[in-house]
């Protein structure tokens, strides 16, 4: 899905500049990369994998004061919280990364599924697999007994990371 998104955006860019040749080259190139990756790994390259790959080494997400989260290190898959250091499993790390890029905003379940698990995630896994992974992440973070939660969910809008407990989204007021 990640490579498809790139192909779509770059094709639009080429179309805007009236360059059919560039569009063809980009399209063929990205298809070859996708085929090469899937022949070696047996799966597609997901959006969050590309995000992790192109991220500068040592990148950290620092959260606002008052949040139980302090620092998130995506490459090490570690979260420094007020109670200690938490290690995230690879898929949980990718879910957290996707939400950390857009904090205080809900990301739809389908978008999360596609970005983390791949384009055909619904064919390969259960429709509740995103919910399952988020639940596991909540248990790891000790988020279940906390109100308001760090990872909030809302029907129709999806899941979102709200590091600052005082922030109230506009939805459903």
């Amino acid at each position, binding site marked *: 899905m990640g490579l498809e998104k790139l192909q779509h955006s770059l094709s639009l860019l080429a179309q805007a500049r009236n360059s059919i040749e560039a569009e063809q080259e*980009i399209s063929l*190139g990205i298809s070859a990369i996708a*085929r090469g990756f899937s022949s070696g*790994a047996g799966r597609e390259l997901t959006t969050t994998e590309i995000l992790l790959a192109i991220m500068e080494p040592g990148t950290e997400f620092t959260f606002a004061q008052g949040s139980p989260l302090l620092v998130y290190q995506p490459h090490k898959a570690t979260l420094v919280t007020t109670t200690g250091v938490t290690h995230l499993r690879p898929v949980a790390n990718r879910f957290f990364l996707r939400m950390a890029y857009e904090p205080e905003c809900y990301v739809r379940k389908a978008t999360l599924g596609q970005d983390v698990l791949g384009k055909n995630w619904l064919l390969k896994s259960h429709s509740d697999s995103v919910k399952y992974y988020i639940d596991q992440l909540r248990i790891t973070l000790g988020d279940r007994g906390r109100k308001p939660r760090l990872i909030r969910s809302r029907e129709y809008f999806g899941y979102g990371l709200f590091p600052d407990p005082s922030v109230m989204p506009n*939805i459903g007021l």
Partner: protein
Amino acid sequence: MAFEILRGQILGDFRGNRNPRRRINAGFAQLNSGLRILGYKNGDIPIDEVRGMLLARSPEEAIIDFGEGSEIVYDPLQALVTITPRGESVPLTPQENRVLTLLTGQPYEYHHARELFLQENLELSCFYDWNRAFRVHTFYMRRKLGNNTKGDPYVRSDQDLGYGLFPGTADLNTE
């Protein structure tokens, strides 16, 4: 920059596996030549641009600006309508947000409530009297959004034609 890093990372995963490496290398070479035509030096593109492409919202999540003459900007993900002449942001309830999402498909046109329900599997339909539920949600939404600069409501209703969203001061689209 971004694609060079990505190539290094992917090839690192396939160390000793010659076939995928060859394909991936050929793919990146072709991609770079395409980017060179688009004016990116050395065929590479800044990391921030690639990140923006990857994190771009899908069309149904995108912020809707209804074009020239529109007085409304609608963010379905945040359930927020910004009314530009008043400089006011109006938060919607989830049900109001659903109703407005349906109406944004074809602005400046009227839609029958029944037609909207049939088009989308709207969760409101679980109500026993869905027509009344729809009317009540629309009533509150209209009251919240108010009138445009000409004095007409943004969400209009007509006894025969149904409900319609009129984000600007233009009249009914008769095309």
